[in-house]
């Protein structure tokens, strides 16, 4: 039970950090008085990831079964999204250190989530 709640807290923190990052990007665009189309899409993606993961994190914290399934799907999608972003950054010849860290962190979360949330002993805690 503690691990499920801890995972929920980590997922909420992950979502809040995305929301904060998106907020910073919005403020940056407002202050510079220009926002390229790509920047708008990146802000939208960050807001979507932040909102979805925060909601799922609350579900995990309250041990809801829908949140368990939704998180397993979401974390898998997130790993693929971050791998794609890493590839695009590599093609653009930009600094990939941050993206490698993102892929590593998301993959680590995915491994823990798939390893723990699919066990029968863990499933019984979900309502």
């Amino acid at each position: 039970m503690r691990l499920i709640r801890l995972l929920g807290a980590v997922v909420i923190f992950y979502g809040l950090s995305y929301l904060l990052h998106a907020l910073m990007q919005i403020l940056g665009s407002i202050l510079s008085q220009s926002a390229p189309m790509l920047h708008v899409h990146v802000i939208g993606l960050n807001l979507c990831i932040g909102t979805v993961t925060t909601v799922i994190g609350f579900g995990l914290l309250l041990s809801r079964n829908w949140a368990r399934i939704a998180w397993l799907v979401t974390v898998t999608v997130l790993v693929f999204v971050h791998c794609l972003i890493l590839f695009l950054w590599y093609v653009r010849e930009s600094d990939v250190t941050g993206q490698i860290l993102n892929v590593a962190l998301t993959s680590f979360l995915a491994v823990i989530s798939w390893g723990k949330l699919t066990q029968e002993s863990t499933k019984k805690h979900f309502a």
Partner: protein
Amino acid sequence: MSSPTKEQFYIGTILGTLLGLLIFALLTGIGIRLIPRQPKIGWVSTVLFGTMCVVTVLDLVREISLEQDKMPDVKGQLSIRRALIAVGVTLVTLFLGIADEFISFLFSNSFPRPGVWLGTFVTTLAFYPLRDEKHADFKRWTLVCAILGVASVILSYGKDWLVNVLI
């Protein structure tokens, strides 16, 4: 409705701790970036906020370990009034922090001077807790505060008129 105590698993407390952790992590990051330019301030803020991060994580682990044997009573903990207060004070804090120049403009230059009205209204409303229990009528006091706000606006116009006449 049961009120949350320190020894009870409460979702609002965990959210508050997570927000605190996010702020401390952000400040630690700013401190790390400051190290090359201003080493003293950078190191002090990194150590200070980094320690706060660790303490907050330990507190978070303690909070999520409470009442592990039972499902949390979410419905019992839900309170619209409590949520409204939390959201309201957060929004006011953010608004006043971001809209600093806008407010000073409203106070001095805007024609209807909503800033003057709002300032008087909020400040006089803050006197409500000091009233006696038998005189406590929140709706009536809100109306009085709104009228006092209008009085402030009229006074503000009167002062401007007087300054123009005298100078």
